[in-house]
Protein backbone atom coordinates (compact mmCIF):
# COMPACT_ATOMS: atom_id res chain seq x y z
CA UNK A 1 0.00 0.00 0.00
CA UNK A 2 2.91 2.27 -0.64
CA UNK A 3 2.76 5.18 -2.97
CA UNK A 4 4.94 4.67 -5.99
CA UNK A 5 5.25 5.14 -9.71
CA UNK A 6 1.85 3.52 -10.25
CA UNK A 7 0.40 6.87 -9.23
CA UNK A 8 1.94 8.66 -12.17
CA UNK A 9 1.30 5.78 -14.53
CA UNK A 10 -2.33 5.78 -13.57
CA UNK A 11 -2.62 9.53 -14.03
CA UNK A 12 -1.07 9.28 -17.49
CA UNK A 13 -3.31 6.36 -18.48
CA UNK A 14 -6.29 8.32 -17.23
CA UNK A 15 -5.32 11.36 -19.26
CA UNK A 16 -4.82 9.25 -22.39
CA UNK A 17 -8.18 7.55 -21.96
CA UNK A 18 -9.95 10.84 -21.43
CA UNK A 19 -8.25 12.29 -24.49
CA UNK A 20 -9.27 9.27 -26.58
CA UNK A 21 -12.82 9.42 -25.31
CA UNK A 22 -13.03 13.14 -26.04
CA UNK A 23 -11.58 12.71 -29.52
CA UNK A 24 -13.05 9.50 -30.84
CA UNK A 25 -15.97 8.37 -28.69
CA UNK A 26 -17.95 11.34 -27.53
CA UNK A 27 -18.37 13.37 -30.75
CA UNK A 28 -19.76 10.61 -33.01
CA UNK A 29 -22.18 9.34 -30.38
CA UNK A 30 -23.32 12.85 -29.57
CA UNK A 31 -23.68 13.66 -33.24
CA UNK A 32 -25.76 10.55 -33.84
CA UNK A 33 -27.96 11.46 -30.88
CA UNK A 34 -28.46 15.00 -32.04
CA UNK A 35 -29.17 13.94 -35.60
CA UNK A 36 -31.74 11.45 -34.39
CA UNK A 37 -33.29 14.11 -32.20
CA UNK A 38 -33.58 16.36 -35.21
CA UNK A 39 -35.01 13.55 -37.28
CA UNK A 40 -37.64 12.78 -34.67
CA UNK A 41 -38.52 16.44 -34.35
CA UNK A 42 -38.83 16.69 -38.12
CA UNK A 43 -40.95 13.57 -38.19
CA UNK A 44 -43.29 14.89 -35.53
CA UNK A 45 -43.49 18.17 -37.41
CA UNK A 46 -44.35 16.40 -40.63
CA UNK A 47 -46.93 14.28 -38.86
CA UNK A 48 -48.68 17.30 -37.39
CA UNK A 49 -48.54 19.01 -40.77
CA UNK A 50 -50.03 15.95 -42.41
CA UNK A 51 -52.81 15.86 -39.83
CA UNK A 52 -53.60 19.46 -40.56
CA UNK A 53 -53.55 18.77 -44.29
CA UNK A 54 -55.86 15.85 -43.81
CA UNK A 55 -58.28 17.96 -41.85
CA UNK A 56 -58.20 20.59 -44.54
CA UNK A 57 -58.79 18.03 -47.25
CA UNK A 58 -61.66 16.53 -45.33
CA UNK A 59 -63.20 19.91 -44.94
CA UNK A 60 -62.78 20.59 -48.63
CA UNK A 61 -64.26 17.27 -49.55
CA UNK A 62 -67.27 17.88 -47.34
CA UNK A 63 -67.77 21.28 -48.88
CA UNK A 64 -67.52 19.91 -52.39
CA UNK A 65 -69.95 17.16 -51.54
CA UNK A 66 -72.42 19.69 -50.23
CA UNK A 67 -71.99 21.82 -53.32
CA UNK A 68 -72.50 18.93 -55.68
CA UNK A 69 -75.53 17.81 -53.75
CA UNK A 70 -77.00 21.26 -54.11
CA UNK A 71 -76.23 21.24 -57.78
CA UNK A 72 -77.82 17.84 -58.21
CA UNK A 73 -80.94 19.00 -56.41
CA UNK A 74 -81.04 22.05 -58.64
CA UNK A 75 -80.67 19.93 -61.76
CA UNK A 76 -83.38 17.56 -60.64
CA UNK A 77 -85.68 20.46 -59.93
CA UNK A 78 -84.98 21.92 -63.33
CA UNK A 79 -85.66 18.57 -64.92
CA UNK A 80 -88.91 18.31 -63.06
CA UNK A 81 -89.91 21.75 -64.19
CA UNK A 82 -88.95 20.96 -67.74
CA UNK A 83 -90.94 17.71 -67.65
CA UNK A 84 -93.99 19.49 -66.33
CA UNK A 85 -93.63 22.07 -69.01
CA UNK A 86 -93.31 19.41 -71.66
CA UNK A 87 -96.35 17.59 -70.38
CA UNK A 88 -98.26 20.84 -70.38
CA UNK A 89 -97.15 21.58 -73.90
CA UNK A 90 -98.04 18.11 -75.05
CA UNK A 91 -101.39 18.39 -73.43
CA UNK A 92 -102.04 21.72 -75.17
CA UNK A 93 -100.90 20.32 -78.46
CA UNK A 94 -103.09 17.31 -78.04
CA UNK A 95 -106.07 19.44 -77.21
CA UNK A 96 -105.51 21.68 -80.22
CA UNK A 97 -105.01 18.68 -82.45
CA UNK A 98 -108.13 17.10 -81.10
CA UNK A 99 -110.10 20.22 -81.64
CA UNK A 100 -108.78 20.48 -85.15
CA UNK A 101 -109.62 16.90 -85.86
CA UNK A 102 -113.06 17.35 -84.44
CA UNK A 103 -113.45 20.44 -86.57
CA UNK A 104 -112.38 18.69 -89.73
CA UNK A 105 -114.54 15.69 -88.92
CA UNK A 106 -117.40 17.98 -88.37
CA UNK A 107 -116.77 19.65 -91.77
CA UNK A 108 -116.60 16.30 -93.41
CA UNK A 109 -119.81 15.20 -91.78
CA UNK A 110 -121.45 18.38 -92.97
CA UNK A 111 -120.17 17.75 -96.46
CA UNK A 112 -121.32 14.15 -96.35
CA UNK A 113 -124.70 15.25 -95.14
CA UNK A 114 -124.86 17.80 -97.83
CA UNK A 115 -124.03 15.25 -100.48
CA UNK A 116 -126.44 12.74 -99.05
CA UNK A 117 -129.14 15.38 -99.09
CA UNK A 118 -128.26 16.22 -102.67
CA UNK A 119 -128.41 12.58 -103.68
CA UNK A 120 -131.56 12.04 -101.74
CA UNK A 121 -133.05 15.01 -103.41
CA UNK A 122 -132.25 13.78 -106.86
CA UNK A 123 -133.45 10.31 -106.02
CA UNK A 124 -136.62 11.69 -104.48
CA UNK A 125 -137.21 13.68 -107.63
CA UNK A 126 -136.64 10.64 -109.76
CA UNK A 127 -138.87 8.52 -107.55
CA UNK A 128 -141.55 11.15 -107.54
CA UNK A 129 -141.44 11.39 -111.24
CA UNK A 130 -141.50 7.64 -111.58
CA UNK A 131 -144.43 7.56 -109.20
CA UNK A 132 -146.17 10.25 -111.05
CA UNK A 133 -145.44 8.55 -114.32
CA UNK A 134 -146.99 5.41 -113.00
CA UNK A 135 -149.97 7.32 -111.74
CA UNK A 136 -150.50 9.38 -114.80
CA UNK A 137 -149.52 6.59 -117.02
CA UNK A 138 -146.75 8.43 -118.67
CA UNK A 139 -148.71 11.10 -120.46
CA UNK A 140 -147.26 14.03 -118.92
CA UNK A 141 -144.78 16.26 -120.49
CA UNK A 142 -141.70 15.31 -118.82
CA UNK A 143 -139.91 18.59 -119.35
CA UNK A 144 -142.78 20.61 -118.07
CA UNK A 145 -143.37 18.65 -115.01
CA UNK A 146 -139.79 18.11 -114.38
CA UNK A 147 -139.35 21.77 -113.61
CA UNK A 148 -142.27 21.60 -111.23
CA UNK A 149 -140.94 18.62 -109.41
CA UNK A 150 -137.50 20.14 -109.21
CA UNK A 151 -139.05 23.13 -107.61
CA UNK A 152 -140.77 20.86 -105.19
CA UNK A 153 -137.58 19.03 -104.52
CA UNK A 154 -135.80 22.26 -103.87
CA UNK A 155 -138.30 23.08 -101.22
CA UNK A 156 -137.64 19.82 -99.48
Amino acid sequence: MNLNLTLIGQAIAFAVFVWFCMKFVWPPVMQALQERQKKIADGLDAASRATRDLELAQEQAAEQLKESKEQAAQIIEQAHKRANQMIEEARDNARLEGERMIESARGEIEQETQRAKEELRTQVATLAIQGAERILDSSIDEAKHRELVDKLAAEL
Partner: protein
Amino acid sequence: MAGNNPTSTEYIQHHLQNMTFGLHPEHGLGLAHSAQEAQEMGFWAIHLDTMGWSIGLGILFLWLFRMVAKSATTGVPSGLQNFVEMMVEFVDNSVRETFHGKSKLIAPLSLTIFCWIFLMNLMDLVPVDFLPMLAQKIGAWFGADPAHVYFKVVPTTDVNATLGMSLAVFALIIFYSIREKGFSGFIAELTLHPFNASNPFVQALLIPANFLLEAVTLLAKPVSLALRLFGNLYAGELIFILIAMIGLWQLPLHFAWATFHLLIITLQAFIFMMLTIVYLSMATEKH
Protein backbone atom coordinates in the same frame (compact mmCIF):
# COMPACT_ATOMS: atom_id res chain seq x y z
CA MET B 1 -3.47 -19.65 -1.27
CA ALA B 2 0.18 -20.30 -0.98
CA GLY B 3 1.84 -23.65 -1.01
CA ASN B 4 2.35 -24.40 2.66
CA ASN B 5 -1.00 -23.57 4.28
CA PRO B 6 -0.77 -19.93 5.32
CA THR B 7 -2.36 -18.59 8.46
CA SER B 8 -5.37 -16.26 8.13
CA THR B 9 -3.17 -13.24 8.63
CA GLU B 10 -0.76 -14.37 5.96
CA TYR B 11 -3.65 -15.15 3.64
CA ILE B 12 -5.14 -11.69 4.02
CA GLN B 13 -1.79 -9.96 3.73
CA HIS B 14 -1.00 -11.97 0.66
CA HIS B 15 -4.24 -10.86 -0.93
CA LEU B 16 -3.63 -7.23 -0.13
CA GLN B 17 -0.15 -7.10 -1.63
CA ASN B 18 0.34 -5.76 -5.14
CA MET B 19 2.59 -7.28 -7.71
CA THR B 20 5.38 -4.73 -7.48
CA PHE B 21 8.06 -4.30 -10.07
CA GLY B 22 11.00 -2.09 -9.35
CA LEU B 23 14.64 -1.66 -8.50
CA HIS B 24 15.45 -3.21 -5.13
CA PRO B 25 18.63 -1.90 -3.50
CA GLU B 26 19.92 -5.43 -2.89
CA HIS B 27 18.20 -7.74 -5.37
CA GLY B 28 18.27 -5.40 -8.34
CA LEU B 29 15.55 -4.96 -10.96
CA GLY B 30 12.66 -7.39 -10.58
CA LEU B 31 9.44 -8.32 -8.84
CA ALA B 32 9.19 -7.83 -5.10
CA HIS B 33 9.04 -11.15 -3.25
CA SER B 34 7.42 -9.73 -0.14
CA ALA B 35 5.71 -6.66 1.23
CA GLN B 36 9.02 -5.80 2.88
CA GLU B 37 10.86 -5.77 -0.43
CA ALA B 38 8.12 -3.78 -2.09
CA GLN B 39 8.46 -1.21 0.67
CA GLU B 40 12.21 -1.06 0.18
CA MET B 41 11.83 -0.36 -3.52
CA GLY B 42 10.52 3.08 -2.59
CA PHE B 43 8.77 5.39 -5.00
CA TRP B 44 10.36 4.16 -8.20
CA ALA B 45 8.43 0.93 -8.40
CA ILE B 46 5.28 0.11 -10.24
CA HIS B 47 2.31 -2.14 -9.50
CA LEU B 48 2.04 -4.31 -12.56
CA ASP B 49 -1.34 -5.77 -11.60
CA THR B 50 -2.95 -2.39 -10.99
CA MET B 51 -1.56 -0.92 -14.19
CA GLY B 52 -2.38 -4.00 -16.24
CA TRP B 53 -5.95 -4.34 -15.10
CA SER B 54 -6.76 -0.65 -15.20
CA ILE B 55 -5.28 -0.14 -18.66
CA GLY B 56 -6.88 -3.34 -19.91
CA LEU B 57 -10.29 -2.31 -18.59
CA GLY B 58 -9.85 1.22 -19.91
CA ILE B 59 -9.06 -0.18 -23.34
CA LEU B 60 -12.04 -2.50 -23.09
CA PHE B 61 -14.27 0.46 -22.32
CA LEU B 62 -12.87 2.62 -25.11
CA TRP B 63 -12.88 -0.24 -27.61
CA LEU B 64 -16.51 -1.01 -26.87
CA PHE B 65 -17.62 2.59 -27.08
CA ARG B 66 -15.44 3.37 -30.07
CA MET B 67 -16.91 0.42 -31.94
CA VAL B 68 -20.40 1.74 -31.33
CA ALA B 69 -19.41 5.33 -32.05
CA LYS B 70 -17.95 4.38 -35.41
CA SER B 71 -21.07 2.60 -36.55
CA ALA B 72 -23.55 4.86 -34.78
CA THR B 73 -26.65 5.28 -36.88
CA THR B 74 -29.27 7.95 -36.60
CA GLY B 75 -31.97 5.38 -37.22
CA VAL B 76 -33.41 3.01 -34.68
CA PRO B 77 -30.49 2.02 -32.44
CA SER B 78 -29.84 -1.64 -31.72
CA GLY B 79 -28.73 -3.41 -28.52
CA LEU B 80 -25.21 -2.19 -27.82
CA GLN B 81 -25.74 1.22 -29.36
CA ASN B 82 -28.78 1.62 -27.15
CA PHE B 83 -26.69 0.91 -24.09
CA VAL B 84 -23.90 3.27 -25.12
CA GLU B 85 -26.36 6.03 -25.95
CA MET B 86 -28.05 5.52 -22.62
CA MET B 87 -24.73 5.93 -20.81
CA VAL B 88 -23.78 8.95 -22.88
CA GLU B 89 -27.11 10.63 -22.31
CA PHE B 90 -27.04 9.86 -18.61
CA VAL B 91 -23.58 11.41 -18.26
CA ASP B 92 -24.50 14.31 -20.53
CA ASN B 93 -27.56 15.09 -18.42
CA SER B 94 -25.57 14.92 -15.19
CA VAL B 95 -23.00 17.30 -16.64
CA ARG B 96 -25.64 19.67 -17.99
CA GLU B 97 -27.40 19.85 -14.65
CA THR B 98 -24.27 20.64 -12.69
CA PHE B 99 -21.74 22.26 -14.97
CA HIS B 100 -22.97 25.48 -16.50
CA GLY B 101 -19.85 26.63 -18.28
CA LYS B 102 -18.90 25.62 -21.77
CA SER B 103 -16.36 22.88 -22.08
CA LYS B 104 -15.76 20.12 -24.54
CA LEU B 105 -13.75 18.19 -22.00
CA ILE B 106 -16.06 17.78 -19.02
CA ALA B 107 -18.61 15.43 -20.54
CA PRO B 108 -16.20 12.89 -22.08
CA LEU B 109 -14.09 13.15 -18.95
CA SER B 110 -17.10 12.25 -16.84
CA LEU B 111 -18.04 9.40 -19.13
CA THR B 112 -14.52 8.00 -18.94
CA ILE B 113 -14.45 8.35 -15.16
CA PHE B 114 -17.80 6.67 -14.66
CA CYS B 115 -17.30 3.74 -17.02
CA TRP B 116 -13.68 3.14 -16.20
CA ILE B 117 -14.12 3.25 -12.44
CA PHE B 118 -17.22 1.11 -12.71
CA LEU B 119 -15.34 -1.53 -14.68
CA MET B 120 -12.40 -1.44 -12.26
CA ASN B 121 -14.79 -1.76 -9.32
CA LEU B 122 -16.58 -4.57 -11.06
CA MET B 123 -13.44 -6.69 -10.80
CA ASP B 124 -14.27 -6.87 -7.11
CA LEU B 125 -17.10 -9.27 -7.91
CA VAL B 126 -14.75 -11.87 -9.36
CA PRO B 127 -14.20 -14.40 -6.54
CA VAL B 128 -11.15 -13.22 -4.60
CA ASP B 129 -9.06 -16.35 -5.08
CA PHE B 130 -9.84 -16.95 -8.69
CA LEU B 131 -7.44 -14.70 -10.58
CA PRO B 132 -4.65 -14.65 -7.93
CA MET B 133 -4.63 -18.47 -7.98
CA LEU B 134 -4.38 -18.41 -11.72
CA ALA B 135 -1.51 -15.94 -11.48
CA GLN B 136 0.23 -18.17 -8.95
CA LYS B 137 -0.11 -21.19 -11.23
CA ILE B 138 1.36 -19.21 -14.10
CA GLY B 139 4.08 -17.86 -11.80
CA ALA B 140 4.88 -21.39 -10.62
CA TRP B 141 5.11 -22.46 -14.21
CA PHE B 142 7.75 -19.83 -14.76
CA GLY B 143 9.60 -21.15 -11.76
CA ALA B 144 8.58 -18.61 -9.12
CA ASP B 145 7.57 -19.51 -5.59
CA PRO B 146 3.72 -19.33 -5.58
CA ALA B 147 3.80 -17.85 -2.08
CA HIS B 148 5.61 -14.85 -3.46
CA VAL B 149 3.43 -14.23 -6.48
CA TYR B 150 1.20 -11.37 -5.51
CA PHE B 151 -1.76 -10.42 -7.62
CA LYS B 152 -4.37 -7.86 -6.75
CA VAL B 153 -7.17 -7.78 -9.24
CA VAL B 154 -9.14 -4.66 -8.34
CA PRO B 155 -7.19 -1.54 -9.36
CA THR B 156 -9.36 0.78 -7.27
CA THR B 157 -8.27 -1.00 -4.08
CA ASP B 158 -4.84 0.38 -4.79
CA VAL B 159 -4.54 3.89 -3.42
CA ASN B 160 -2.09 4.71 -6.21
CA ALA B 161 -4.79 4.22 -8.81
CA THR B 162 -7.41 6.35 -7.14
CA LEU B 163 -4.93 9.04 -6.17
CA GLY B 164 -3.55 9.06 -9.70
CA MET B 165 -6.97 9.82 -11.08
CA SER B 166 -7.84 12.36 -8.44
CA LEU B 167 -4.53 14.15 -9.01
CA ALA B 168 -5.36 14.37 -12.70
CA VAL B 169 -8.70 15.88 -11.71
CA PHE B 170 -6.86 18.21 -9.33
CA ALA B 171 -4.67 19.39 -12.18
CA LEU B 172 -7.81 20.07 -14.18
CA ILE B 173 -9.30 22.02 -11.27
CA ILE B 174 -6.25 24.27 -11.15
CA PHE B 175 -6.15 24.55 -14.94
CA TYR B 176 -9.80 25.57 -15.14
CA SER B 177 -9.47 28.00 -12.23
CA ILE B 178 -6.59 29.77 -13.89
CA ARG B 179 -8.17 29.69 -17.33
CA GLU B 180 -11.45 31.17 -16.10
CA LYS B 181 -10.17 33.67 -13.55
CA GLY B 182 -6.62 34.25 -14.63
CA PHE B 183 -3.61 33.51 -12.47
CA SER B 184 -4.18 36.57 -10.29
CA GLY B 185 -7.85 35.65 -9.88
CA PHE B 186 -6.85 32.20 -8.75
CA ILE B 187 -4.39 33.61 -6.22
CA ALA B 188 -6.98 36.13 -5.08
CA GLU B 189 -9.44 33.36 -4.53
CA LEU B 190 -6.91 31.55 -2.38
CA THR B 191 -5.96 34.56 -0.29
CA LEU B 192 -8.87 37.02 -0.11
CA HIS B 193 -11.48 34.55 1.13
CA PRO B 194 -13.27 33.93 3.41
CA PHE B 195 -12.04 36.87 5.55
CA ASN B 196 -12.25 40.18 3.85
CA ALA B 197 -11.41 43.69 5.01
CA SER B 198 -11.54 47.03 3.28
CA ASN B 199 -8.43 48.25 5.08
CA PRO B 200 -5.44 47.03 3.04
CA PHE B 201 -3.30 46.65 6.15
CA VAL B 202 -5.85 44.46 7.90
CA GLN B 203 -6.32 42.55 4.68
CA ALA B 204 -2.61 41.84 4.52
CA LEU B 205 -2.82 40.40 8.01
CA LEU B 206 -5.77 38.21 7.02
CA ILE B 207 -4.05 36.73 3.96
CA PRO B 208 -2.16 33.96 5.78
CA ALA B 209 -5.31 32.79 7.56
CA ASN B 210 -7.27 32.85 4.32
CA PHE B 211 -4.56 31.02 2.48
CA LEU B 212 -4.38 28.33 5.15
CA LEU B 213 -8.13 27.71 5.00
CA GLU B 214 -8.40 27.83 1.21
CA ALA B 215 -5.34 25.65 0.67
CA VAL B 216 -6.82 22.99 2.94
CA THR B 217 -10.12 23.23 1.09
CA LEU B 218 -8.37 22.92 -2.24
CA LEU B 219 -6.09 20.06 -1.24
CA ALA B 220 -8.91 18.20 0.50
CA LYS B 221 -10.66 17.80 -2.84
CA PRO B 222 -8.31 15.34 -4.54
CA VAL B 223 -7.46 13.60 -1.31
CA SER B 224 -11.07 13.01 -0.33
CA LEU B 225 -11.92 12.01 -3.89
CA ALA B 226 -9.17 9.39 -3.93
CA LEU B 227 -9.60 8.12 -0.39
CA ARG B 228 -13.38 7.80 -0.62
CA LEU B 229 -13.17 5.48 -3.59
CA PHE B 230 -10.16 3.62 -2.26
CA GLY B 231 -11.67 3.21 1.21
CA ASN B 232 -14.97 1.87 0.00
CA LEU B 233 -13.44 -0.61 -2.40
CA TYR B 234 -10.65 -1.63 -0.05
CA ALA B 235 -13.16 -2.36 2.71
CA GLY B 236 -15.39 -4.25 0.31
CA GLU B 237 -12.46 -6.30 -0.92
CA LEU B 238 -11.41 -7.03 2.65
CA ILE B 239 -14.86 -8.34 3.48
CA PHE B 240 -14.78 -10.55 0.39
CA ILE B 241 -11.46 -11.94 1.61
CA LEU B 242 -12.83 -12.52 5.11
CA ILE B 243 -15.90 -14.25 3.67
CA ALA B 244 -13.64 -16.43 1.56
CA MET B 245 -12.00 -17.78 4.70
CA ILE B 246 -15.03 -19.22 6.48
CA GLY B 247 -15.50 -22.40 4.53
CA LEU B 248 -18.77 -23.63 3.11
CA TRP B 249 -20.88 -20.76 4.46
CA GLN B 250 -19.03 -18.36 2.21
CA LEU B 251 -21.32 -19.18 -0.70
CA PRO B 252 -24.59 -17.55 0.49
CA LEU B 253 -22.64 -14.84 2.29
CA HIS B 254 -20.56 -14.09 -0.74
CA PHE B 255 -23.72 -13.82 -2.80
CA ALA B 256 -25.37 -11.47 -0.29
CA TRP B 257 -22.31 -9.24 -0.03
CA ALA B 258 -21.78 -9.23 -3.79
CA THR B 259 -25.36 -8.09 -4.30
CA PHE B 260 -24.89 -5.28 -1.84
CA HIS B 261 -21.47 -4.47 -3.23
CA LEU B 262 -22.92 -4.09 -6.69
CA LEU B 263 -24.72 -1.07 -5.32
CA ILE B 264 -21.54 0.32 -3.77
CA ILE B 265 -19.39 -0.02 -6.87
CA THR B 266 -21.96 1.75 -9.05
CA LEU B 267 -22.51 4.41 -6.44
CA GLN B 268 -18.81 5.05 -5.93
CA ALA B 269 -18.22 5.37 -9.66
CA PHE B 270 -21.13 7.79 -9.84
CA ILE B 271 -19.92 9.79 -6.83
CA PHE B 272 -16.42 10.11 -8.26
CA MET B 273 -17.90 11.38 -11.51
CA MET B 274 -20.37 13.76 -9.87
CA LEU B 275 -17.76 15.23 -7.52
CA THR B 276 -15.40 15.75 -10.41
CA ILE B 277 -18.09 17.69 -12.24
CA VAL B 278 -18.93 19.68 -9.12
CA TYR B 279 -15.30 20.54 -8.40
CA LEU B 280 -14.71 21.61 -11.98
CA SER B 281 -17.87 23.69 -12.07
CA MET B 282 -16.79 25.34 -8.80
CA ALA B 283 -13.42 26.02 -10.40
CA THR B 284 -15.01 27.78 -13.37
CA GLU B 285 -17.59 29.79 -11.47
CA LYS B 286 -16.75 33.21 -10.14
CA HIS B 287 -17.68 34.03 -6.57
